[in-house]
């Protein structure tokens, strides 16, 4: 909104303040000349879901800060989300918004002496130009992992679950497998076992001949 400040703006205090600073009320622009030779950058931070209500930002954004040029100046948000930097020299500046829980892209703002009032602002993250200096978070930030709700698969997948599963397979499925085998073959195998006595590793090795 800050770029083309319409006369029917609701925030009269800001307008008055702006008039004071710019010394001419007809100015309807976000970047205005101050009497110290510098310019004033006005903008707004909008956080969806809350910004619409205007007043009454959540406690979460209470501590939101707006920083110019990596810490050169720091300002805070008014209840309606507006902020301003005064006495800024002409040049290309960087504005960063810091609010816990949200990710804001830094904004490049050109303040030029040649055409005062014309805002050239662009998000540096995605190079999107801004027509007005309204900053919105690119995304919400979630600092914690979310615990998966109880899931039987998570137990099964855990090492201990796998152990139990393996055991169950051995205990209950193996006998079934054995039962399904041909009784003749089982007898044969059992006889072999008896002949061999203790099975040795040599028997299991491929090509290992019968030693006895």
């Amino acid at each position: 909104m800050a770029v083309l400040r319409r006369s029917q703006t609701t925030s009269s205090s800001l307008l008055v303040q702006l008039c004071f600073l710019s010394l001419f009320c007809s100015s309807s622009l976000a970047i205005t000349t101050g009497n110290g030779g510098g310019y004033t950058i006005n903008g707004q931070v909008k956080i969806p879901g809350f910004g619409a209500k205007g007043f009454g930002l959540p406690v979460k954004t209470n501590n939101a800060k707006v920083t110019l040029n990596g810490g050169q100046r720091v300002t805070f948000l008014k209840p309606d989300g507006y902020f301003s930097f005064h006495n800024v020299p002409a040049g290309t500046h960087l504005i960063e918004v810091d609010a816990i829980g949200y990710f804001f892209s830094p904004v490049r703002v050109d303040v030029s002496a040649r055409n005062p009032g014309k805002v050239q602002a662009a998000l540096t993250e995605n190079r999107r130009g801004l027509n007005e200096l309204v900053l919105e978070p690119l995304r919400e930030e979630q600092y914690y992992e979310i615990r998966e709700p109880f899931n039987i698969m998570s137990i099964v997948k855990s090492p201990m679950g796998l152990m139990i599963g393996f055991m169950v397979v051995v205990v209950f499925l193996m006998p079934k497998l054995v039962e399904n085998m041909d009784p003749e073959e089982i007898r044969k195998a059992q006889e072999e076992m008896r002949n061999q006595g203790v099975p040795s590793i040599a028997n299991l090795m491929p090509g290992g001949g019968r030693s006895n």
Partner: protein
Amino acid sequence: MAMAMKLSLLLLFFLSSLIPTFSLFEDQVGFMDWHQRYIGKVKHAVFQTQKAGRKRVVVSTEENVIASLDLRRGEIFWRHVLGANDVVDKIDIALGKYVITLSSEGSILRAWNLPDGQMVWESFLSGSKPSKALLTVPANLKVDLDSPIFVYGGACLYAISSIDGEILWKKDFTAEGIDVHQLLLPDGSDVVHAVGVTDLSQFDTYEIDVRNGELLKHVSASFPDGIYGEILPISSDKFVALDARRSVLVLISIKDGQINLQQTHVSDLVHGSSGNTAILPSKLSGIFSVITDTFIAFIKVTNEGKLDVMEKVDKMVVVSDALPLSEGEQAFALVQHGESKIHLSVRLVHDMSSNHLKETVKMDHERGFVHKIFINNYVRTDRSHGFRALIVMEDHSLLLLQQGEIVWSRDDGLASVIDVTTSELPVEKLGVSVSKVEHSLFEWLKGHMLKLKGTLMLATPDEVAAIQKIRLQSSEKSKMTRDHNGFRRLLIVLTRAGKLFALHTGDGRVVWSSLLQSLRKSDKCTDPIGLKLHQWQIPHHHALDNNPSVLVVGRCGLSLSASSAMSIVDAYTGKELHNMGPAHSTVQVISLPFSDSTEQQLHLLIDADKRAHLYPRTPEAAEIFQRESENVYWYSVEAEAGILRGYAVKGSCNLEVPNEYCFETRNLWSIVFPSESEKIIATVTRKANEVIHTQAKVIADEDVMYKYISKNILFVATVSPKASGPIGSATPDESLLVVHLVDTVTGRILHRMSHSGSQGPVHAVLSENWVVYHYFNLRAHRYEISVIEIYDQSRAENKDVLKLIVGKHNLTAPVSSYSRPEVTIKSQSYFFTHSVKAISVTSTAKGITSKHLLIGTLGDKVLALDKRFVDPRRSLNPTQAEKEEGLLPLTDALPIIPQSYITHAFKVEGLRGIETVPAKLESTTLVFAYGVDLFFTRLAPSRTYDSLTEDFNYALLLLTIVALVVAIFVTWVLSERKDLQDKWR
């Protein structure tokens, strides 16, 4: 088959964890981290106790914090950290609901909502020239205006509506040339008095209409002797000032538009005063106080204009401002320091002779003297006045006194940490069990069952709370003995107040604190400031009976040539073992890698005359140093002149008094940067105690690269002088950032690289064979992070197996710092979203674990970024082999994953530094971030591969084992029965 499945699942698990982040579940907060919030040394305090509801005190501090504190317990209701250039001048409360702050030399006025700290309005006051900043909030103005507040700043007087910050009127004083000292609003009148001095020799008072800012009256009187300090009002028509020679008191009284000056010699009033007289700024009606070298005198001004000395008190007494009571009565407080206690007395201005209230409060002598006092009153049930006093101590702590007791205290010295080091805890003695064994097996099992429920998300909210409690109360982590994993340590921090604190890493509590005698204000050392902390004695093998100790180096004054002050402090008790008073100056402290038979580390202190002083001053240390002195090299950075110099030891000092611990130095090399094109803005070197596991780096296709791991690499960043200002002050064409890698033994520049169109500030970290640095790219108008890796080319041929067999390799060749290294450099740059305040890297005990960069962002959060994201070998399309090696495809920007903020939802307000300390467990590193807040956590950059996590579920393991045993028995019984049946058949 099951095995195969298990294997594949395990593989899947490992694959999914390829890029580890420090993700944390919300219920794990406070489990291995702690966060402490501070505000700093209080400058101003305003009480808000009139209305019903929560009683609070609003303070502004030297850390540029404004905060609202609970008057009952001292907790922070809300707090804002203002920008570094936006220093708070004055605070007050208007309308009973807004906190008004005036900052930036009277050019920014802000109102904050008292209950929640939301900024309500902000006014920019564009003054014409710098001046004093004054703020007056009239209590009861009988004028039909929407409650104005009066601000003087930038040589203009403003009336500002306290409702919306609108400027009602402005009166410019630039033309008058007056320097306003006081703004007065006499009760019930509608005139503002601006009282000040013109050209230091004329006293002026302007009367201005409250309604429209019109000048009503101007009276002046010249005072040729000049004025020292400020004019102090005594009543609405009487003022007192001191002449420029500080020997004559001038009483200024205005009667019927005439100014009457009356001079009195200070020595006539009080005997034994010398030149250092000053008027204290306490505003008491009819009384003012004068401080001399030895005492404070309270002087009463009678209606006839006579000065009467009422009382003389000791110079160390601290006087509060006047507190208006009912019926025009005023009270003020005096605090006197006694032996381990302080005496607080409250007096009424009209009745100075007796103490209205006298209390004695026991005070820990480690808190030092009282620096400031603010008082507030309350009405007792018997309708008499009770008083509470907020006092600020020498160690910057804040205490509330009421009824002779300390109600609460805050260690706000911890908001200004200068340096950090760590110390091991004592070894647990045999036979002495400090830890409490778990109460019983049942309790233990119950706890783990609860945890199991928690992990399965089956727990009720009550149970979740119980789990949290069990976790936080685990007595293990706050024990006062060494642990196997090396998680428990003492963090020893030096604060700006010259106080040393030892914090336990388990829960962040203060184990001991000690106000260092060497860093206290004294006649010899008038402006002491702490500089550095070094490990002095680290008992390992020989001197195990000794406690470890730390060396604190400070300086008596701001200039580099000021004499230094040193202390050696026992790390277990906080006792000051040695205290070396003002000695030679100290510009640089070098910890040498040698220690004597009692395991005291040798230190070299370089003074302003480039002499080296050896500590400890023992013959043994001197002998060790003489032996090794040929191999001692160091460098200095003269940022202003743009010169780097390398030094070595030459021989003993040529002093009149022979001193075997003082050495002359010789300049070995210097690098002079051309001042018209390069200005040094950052230098960084490797941490001296860093451990590197291996020089070899196995890359794709079983190839090997050798890291160049010299301890003597210095990273230097320079910018063109035009671009040394803030962002926005230079165009891309005129800014150039150049980075250099310099060998500090030979002075050789190993590598030089320039980034055109870039500028500082540069934050860098150097570790192993790489350096990572953060700077601003003006062309893209984004921040960038670049990495440089250095590889040793001279060892590259060793890959040939044939040569190895024949013996034509140089693996056994000695490594020398003098040799000219053949190095290859790899470099890459990436965009990074945020501004950076500090950058650091994780460090582990053996250097095997992969590294993470710790980036302190502008939002006062600490981001952990895997070093693999800043690997110069990343390419757009990595080959299959490179993918297997774990090389990530190249992206233009570094990812910011919210879960990898190690400070999670906390902020370390005013972040200044990040310190990492290896734990004994190889996978883990301890991280301490400090600023106005303190934050500690421990990290496992490659997950805890060498231990079970703390929330490992023993109950589930036990359950599995029991189930297995039961199953074995069941199957055994079943098989027996089956056998029997088979046999009967």
